[in-house]
């Protein structure tokens, strides 16, 4: 279980997160929605401490970090319980697809090379890249790179995978293949937190939706409630464009 309590973050005088509380149960898929600048990516990056919150508490499973005075050891423990899929993929550029997936297992988890190799190949097969094991990221399309990114995250068998707008940098044709992979692993009961602008996808995959604006949670609940009968005016406004759009496409 993941529990965020009173997470606050400021960049200088700009208050980006105003004390966010969020609980994510094991096996839950949480989608965080909201307009640009609402703080959703910052919140996600706070969970594995790529961004340092100025206040609050993060706890995942049995480890927790007090953001007022974080201990290096606790941050390390937090990072080992999470994995992240980045908007810009951020694959290790000097390593092949296979080496990218193996790296964390071998260096951080100290898994013997042969075993790590076997597990990594299985994962790359799972994301449909069995034929690209020895390809460097510069030789892969955006969609393929992102799928390697997902395999790299899965390899660590983390308690939660954080997705930071995983399809925003992809051209429309490649979005589908990445979403298909995420959909597949969502069904396996892996806990995930996804920041996304793909409303249809969020509605389909998530079992909990959080709508954020101005550094605060405006509304949260099951996707059906949020998408079909939002309580807050602001949520309705934000989703109106999406729902009317899909009405046209019918």
């Amino acid at each position: 279980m993941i529990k965020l309590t009173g997470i606050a973050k400021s960049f200088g005088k700009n208050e980006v997160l105003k004390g966010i509380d969020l609980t994510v149960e094991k096996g839950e898929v949480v989608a965080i929605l909201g307009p640009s600048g609402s703080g959703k990516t910052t919140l996600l990056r706070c969970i594995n401490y790529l961004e340092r919150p100025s206040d609050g508490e993060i706890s995942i499973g049995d480890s927790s970090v007090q953001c007022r005075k974080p201990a290096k050891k606790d941050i390390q423990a937090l990072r080992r319980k999470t994995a992240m899929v980045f908007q810009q993929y951020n694959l290790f550029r000097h390593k092949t697809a296979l080496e990218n997936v193996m790296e964390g297992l071998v260096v951080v988890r100290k898994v013997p090379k042969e075993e790590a190799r076997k597990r990594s190949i299985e994962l790359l097969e799972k994301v449909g890249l069995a034929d690209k094991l020895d390809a460097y990221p510069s030789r892969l399309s955006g969609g393929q790179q992102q799928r390697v990114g997902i395999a790299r995250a899965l390899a660590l068998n983390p308690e939660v995978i954080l997705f930071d707008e995983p399809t925003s940098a992809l051209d429309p044709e490649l979005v589908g293949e990445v979403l298909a992979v995420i959909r597949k692993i969502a069904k396996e009961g892996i806990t995930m937190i996804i920041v996304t602008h793909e409303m249809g996808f969020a509605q389909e995959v998530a079992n909990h939706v959080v709508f954020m604006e101005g550094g605060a949670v405006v509304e949260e609940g099951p996707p059906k409630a949020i998408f079909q009968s939002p309580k807050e005016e602001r949520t309705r406004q934000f989703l109106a464009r999406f729902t009317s759009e899909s009405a046209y496409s019918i």
Partner: protein
Amino acid sequence: MKLDFSFIWKAFLELLPAVPTTIQITVVSVLCGFAIGTAIALCRMYRVPVLHRIAAAYVTVIRGTPMLTHLLLIYVGVPLLVDGLSGRYGWSFRSGDIPMIGFAYLSFSITAGAYFSEVVRSGLLAVSKGQLEAAYSVGMTTTQALRRIVFPQAFAAALPNLSNNVIGMLHGSTLAFTVSVVDINARAEIVATTNWKFFEAYLAAALLFWGLTILIERLSALLERRVTRYNRGGVA
């Protein structure tokens, strides 16, 4: 003026025994300079308290003064220091025991450290922040992330500049003649004055340096092709 071609060849052969000295000075100063430069670049980039100020001062002072001045200051200053300390603590070690080439090693390493720190820094800056974040996201410590992810890529990015600076140190090593180290340049001087054929002797030295430079260029091109294989997709 008539050029004595056969003497150029003769001088060339006489210069060969000095090549190892030149190479030694270059290799030692480049290796030490690279180590010092990396430490300085890291101190400055990570703003290590106190140290980053010292590092910044070191770079401006050393880059702001000529290499020859460093050598002369070391040559005069180190014996004063060594003999002063020996006198006070009753050591038997005297400055006269320091081999001349030692002054060249020390001074050129200090010079190279300042220049290499900027090369290393530009290499580190060429690695995107996302690479470090990805390393953290899989649970690496800062040391692991630097060693496994950042340094290999920074090295590849810095290679062209690095080879440039190695060539600079090779040519700079000629200054060692001022402290009576007999490198290629000093040897040419000796050959020239004993035979009264200056132009030919210097020409032979130039040819030797040119050859060594081409060697460095080739080696660095080879290395570059190897370490940047990933940029072109390589074995894929």
